[in-house]
């Protein structure tokens, strides 16, 4: 078994030697993350693919409305040198466009389509990514954005069941709540000396 910490070091050297890394985090002995410029992503992923990180594990986005940015995450994995690498980059939230990585990792096809559906990020170069995949006839802003409120949407569209009373007492016993209220009334009555 190769020493996994040295794998992380190796990855850091590969990337930091040739590209500008904005932020680097070593999360655990099997995982490291790099935040890079938007333009470097494709060449970094190509570099990683040639050096053994041939599996695209995950692709998604994070919404940061305060900074008016989307954060894109690419996670690649190498089964021989077990390190998950997160490549993260930031996009402008107003007009989020990111070139597709379809030529590098063909497996990204549906991940990108889903990210477009849930965040509204466009991926030119991925044919058909603008069609809906999971949702059907969606009529609101993309649902995983932070300013989308599912509760309001749900209240607007789906009628909640209304309960005329909170519970139904099937056994004919007094419920605890009613018993407590009666007890309180009794106490008040006693306190007041039987007067109303």
């Amino acid at each position, binding site marked *: 078994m190769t020493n996994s910490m040295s794998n992380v070091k190796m990855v850091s050297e590969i990337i930091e030697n040739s590209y500008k890394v904005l932020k680097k985090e070593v999360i655990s002995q099997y995982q490291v993350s790099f935040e890079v410029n938007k333009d470097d992503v494709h060449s970094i992923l190509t570099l990683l693919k040639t050096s053994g990180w041939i599996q695209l594990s995950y692709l998604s986005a994070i919404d940061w409305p305060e900074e008016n940015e989307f954060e894109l995450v690419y996670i690649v994995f190498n089964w021989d040198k077990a390190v998950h690498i997160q490549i993260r980059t930031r996009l402008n939230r107003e007009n989020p466009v990111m070139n597709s990585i379809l030529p590098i990792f063909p497996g990204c096809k549906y991940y990108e389509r889903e990210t477009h559906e849930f965040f509204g990020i466009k991926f030119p170069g991925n044919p058909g990514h603008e069609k809906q995949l999971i949702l059907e006839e969606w009529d609101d802003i993309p649902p995983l954005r932070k300013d989308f409120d599912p509760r309001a949407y749900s209240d607007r*569209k789906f009628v*909640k069941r209304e309960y005329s009373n909170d519970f139904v007492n099937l056994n004919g016993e007094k419920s605890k709540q009613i018993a407590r209220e009666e007890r309180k009334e009794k106490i008040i009555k006693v306190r007041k000396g039987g007067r109303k």
Partner: protein
Amino acid sequence: MLSTKFTKLSKEEVDRKWWEIGDFFRRNSLWMLMYCTGCCAIELPPAMTSAYDMERLGMGPMATPRQADVLLVTGYLSLKTLRRLIYTYEQMSEPKYVVGIGSCTINGGIYHDSHAVINQLNRYVPVDVYVAGCMPNTEAVMNGFVDLMGLIKTKKANGWKDYHARNEWYMANQKAALGEVKVHDEFHE
């Protein structure tokens, strides 16, 4: 001594008697549709197979909606499923019954505030029996079926009649939630 005199029954009486005979057969041979709409369907395999053996009650899975009597709505219904569920329900031949399994069919359950899941099943299709729980035990599911048989016996499982009687109301609810009930599959390809 019993009277052997033949009294002519009225047409309603005759219909009622035939209906009762039909109800006997219907409740002893409930064929359910194999449609796993949600996660509670995972408790159906134990109920169907040797552990609980649903076939003792005369129940069995059926391949297509036309052949089935019972539609099991097992758990949450996303909008996409609801569209197909309405298609399925309307394809079934009458008398047909609906069993809603899991809390999600009653009031949305754990997904009450989700943007994709409806909250109340009986606004869209009539429901005869609810089985509560997230998820209900297999015993509870089986008990739900026995309850349905009891309801058929006492002529209370009238959801399918209600769907005829209040069809506009159901249609309006479906439209309000779905926009358009028709399934467009082409958009995907």
